[in-house]
């Protein structure tokens, strides 16, 4: 137990850095930021797994040791408990008057009759009873230890379920624009991580179309601009041959199908541009996903147009509600698209797409490019670039939603173990284990001396009351004291 105590402290202590330093598992971007801001201490901390605390070998070794110590404690106790459950309580001690709860009285009732009747009465009350010639030994509250064992065992099952879920599951994120679709294929994901035991070609062939996305925000008051509601209306095909069905995904209400779960985790705006050359030929037409930067959904993004010579790039901001003055730069006043506008700069040169290096679709590599102009556009406005007649029309915007798609086959086991742990815990903390005895001895002046006594192994209230109730059940002829 002392070792378990020390390991529990270590576990608590080891968790602390996980909440102080950004963790790769939850916020990889903030980890990169931290490493950039702390060039000396960052790599040292990284080597100590400070950014992967809960996946680190030292964290794992603490909880594995804890579980080994737990098994070392629980297994022998389980065997012991099994024997106790099958056996009978130990014989009554000789001297009952030494016990913490004790009462005695004289009666002429015979020992054998009293023992017989009392045994039945105590048994009826749920006590496990053993009798001798002139004594009864009774015990109650075995479910305390059963609960204790159940609790520790369910912790072990929970740990295994967490491990299995990580190995046999996956988690991916994908951005889908209104009017666009998603088919459950690993190439369609923006990010995708799977456990060692899950191969990506086993992804169930679910697909869906984002028909409509709705968001609304608090207007006015202290929490102005706080999100109030958002949901995504999907047209889902559970498998390629199934008929499409409508489904609304909301925060807290994911889509569950074919062993995967689809969550709505984020949203934003995608401004639509139409870019034509001087003769009116279409160069590019689409809605570009811009990423929100602040609470007002000031969103930044780029458009890359490789099919012109020289190549063109647009970079800038989409503002759902254009602010009255630009003294602080282009900042959106409100997250809803009340008065949308874009604030973009045009670049000309080499986009660097042919270098073979993977490139972010949200950033323009302007190393070999030259800025040729900057403009602010409202929906429907067209900007003629100063490079010979290329026109950029800002035609409007669409919304987009980020979906997290996960599979965790051991989730049910984890839930079952969690529920079992609460049941076990409640039994082991709330039910007292206690013993009670009756002994009948011939009294010096004739008749018999009746003694009832009780003992609780744990700090539970009410033992005295319970024992005196048991004493009441001993049916003797004279008044009890």
């Amino acid at each position, binding site marked *: 137990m002392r070792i378990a105590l020390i390991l529990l402290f270590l576990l608590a202590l080891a968790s602390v850095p996980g909440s102080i330093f950004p963790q790769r598992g939850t916020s990889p971007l903030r980890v990169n930021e931290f490493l950039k801001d702390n060039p000396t201490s960052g790599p040292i901390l990284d080597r100590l797994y400070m950014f992967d605390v809960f996946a680190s070998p030292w964290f794992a070794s603490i909880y594995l040791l804890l579980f080994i110590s737990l098994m070392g404690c629980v297994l022998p106790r389980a065997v012991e408990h099994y024997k106790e459950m099958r056996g009978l309580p130990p014989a009554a001690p000789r001297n009952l008057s030494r016990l*913490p709860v004790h009462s005695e009285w004289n009666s002429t009732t015979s020992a054998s009759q009293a023992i017989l009747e009392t045994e039945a009465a105590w048994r009826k009350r749920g006590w496990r009873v053993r009798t001798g010639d002139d004594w009864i030994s009774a015990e109650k509250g075995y479910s305390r230890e059963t609960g204790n064992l159940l609790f520790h065992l369910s912790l072990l099952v929970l740990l295994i379920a967490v491990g299995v879920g990580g190995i046999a599951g996956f988690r991916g994120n994908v951005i889908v624009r209104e009017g666009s679709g998603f088919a459950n294929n690993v190439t369609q994901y923006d990010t995708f991580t799977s456990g060692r035991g899950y191969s990506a070609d086993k992804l169930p062939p679910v697909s869906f179309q984002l028909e409509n996305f709705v968001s609304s925000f608090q207007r006015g008051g202290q929490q102005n601009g706080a999100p109030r509601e958002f949901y995504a209306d999907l047209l889902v095909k559970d498998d390629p041959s199934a008929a499409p069905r409508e489904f609304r995904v909301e*925060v807290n209400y994911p889509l569950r199908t074919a062993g995967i779960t689809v969550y709505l985790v984020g949203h934003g705006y995608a401004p639509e541009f139409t870019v034509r050359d001087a003769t009116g030929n279409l160069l590019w037409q689409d809605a570009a996903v811009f990423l929100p930067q602040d609470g007002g959904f000031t969103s930044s993004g780029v458009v890359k147009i490789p099919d012109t010579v020289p190549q063109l790039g647009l970079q800038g901001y989409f503002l759902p509600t254009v602010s009255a003055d630009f003294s602080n730069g282009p900042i959106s006043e409100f997250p809803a698209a009340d008065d949308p506008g874009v604030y973009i700069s045009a670049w000309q040169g080499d986009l660097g797409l042919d270098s073979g290096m993977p490139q972010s679709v949200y950033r323009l590599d302007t190393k070999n490019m030259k800025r040729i102009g900057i403009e602010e556009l409202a929906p429907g406005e067209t900007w003629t670039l100063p490079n010979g007649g290329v026109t950029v029309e800002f035609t409007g915007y669409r919304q987009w939603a980020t979906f*997290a798609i996960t599979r965790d086959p051991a989730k049910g086991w984890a839930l079952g173990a969690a529920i079992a742990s609460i049941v076990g815990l409640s039994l082991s903390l709330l039910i007292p284990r206690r013993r009670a005895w009756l002994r009948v001895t011939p009294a010096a002046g004739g008749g018999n001396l009746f003694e009832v006594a009780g003992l609780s192994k744990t700090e539970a209230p009410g033992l005295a009351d319970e024992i005196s109730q048991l004493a009441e059940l001993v049916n003797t002829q004279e008044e009890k004291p």
Partner: protein
Amino acid sequence: MTVNETLAQASNAMVYGAITAFTSSMVAFSISLAKGRRLETLEESAERTNSSYQVRRGSTETLIKPAVSTSVSVNGDRGDGRRAGNIGMALTWLGTIMLGMALAFRGLSVGRWPLGNMYEFSLAAGFAISLTYCVMSLSRDLRWLGLFITIPVLLDLGSAITVLYAESAQLVPALNSYWLLIHVAAATLCIGAFTVGAALSGLYLVVQAAEDRIAAGLAPGKSAAIAQRVPPADRIDLMAYRIHAFMFPIWTFAVIAGAIWAEAAWGRYWGWDPKETWAFITWVFYAAYLHARATAGWRGRKAAYIALAGYSAIIFNYFIVNIYVQGLHSYSGL
């Protein structure tokens, strides 16, 4: 859904009313405590626990004398300070009811459960502390504990109206779930009851220190001023244990309910979000406390320190993680 301003203001008025009631009851309990004396003297307690210590030694399975030693009673029963204690008790009930009404009005003003930001959590936590105390006082005389309950309640409410205040408003979508009620209500209830537990454990340490000094033949020391006005150390320790043992399964449930909600809202049931991490640390500390209570050499004082460490983790989670640490649980409304 709009906000009903009349009800929102009625709620604020009730909070101020509750603060007035708790402040008055704090004064009353102070008077009661100052006048009270416990029936078993410090010397008697020291002697009694020292003799039973011989029995305890050398075994992890300890025999506890059940509640038959009725000679131990609390202050107030002898008349001194009794009236002030009764006034304090009545005012505490009044404050608790007003706080309950403040929460109800707040909820009605926005048509949802009033558990959506830190101001509301704090009102609910204050309510949970005082309600735990009131309910416990129904079956035993707890006037001696009143001062140590009204102080944390007032600190909690004071911080609520000054730094944490948020206007009545609708919820962010992630909080729109019936798990909000289950998870947050269970967690808040635990915070309330663990506050009472922490007050008892802290008080136990003070009283035990005084009893130990007397057992060692020293002068009672400063702690005796409090120690001789409250029940013996072993009684307080037992009360602290019972409340912690009773609340630990509920805390476990609160954490699991949170995990179920997280599964529905964020796509995983456990992700080591800072708030989750500190809930886990709290859980580990209280688990260690319960183990310590059953381990020879760790009962008593060491166990009490572990309970206080668990409570510090709760406070850290509430004030530091909620406000300063970036995570998914950023609902403070600040």
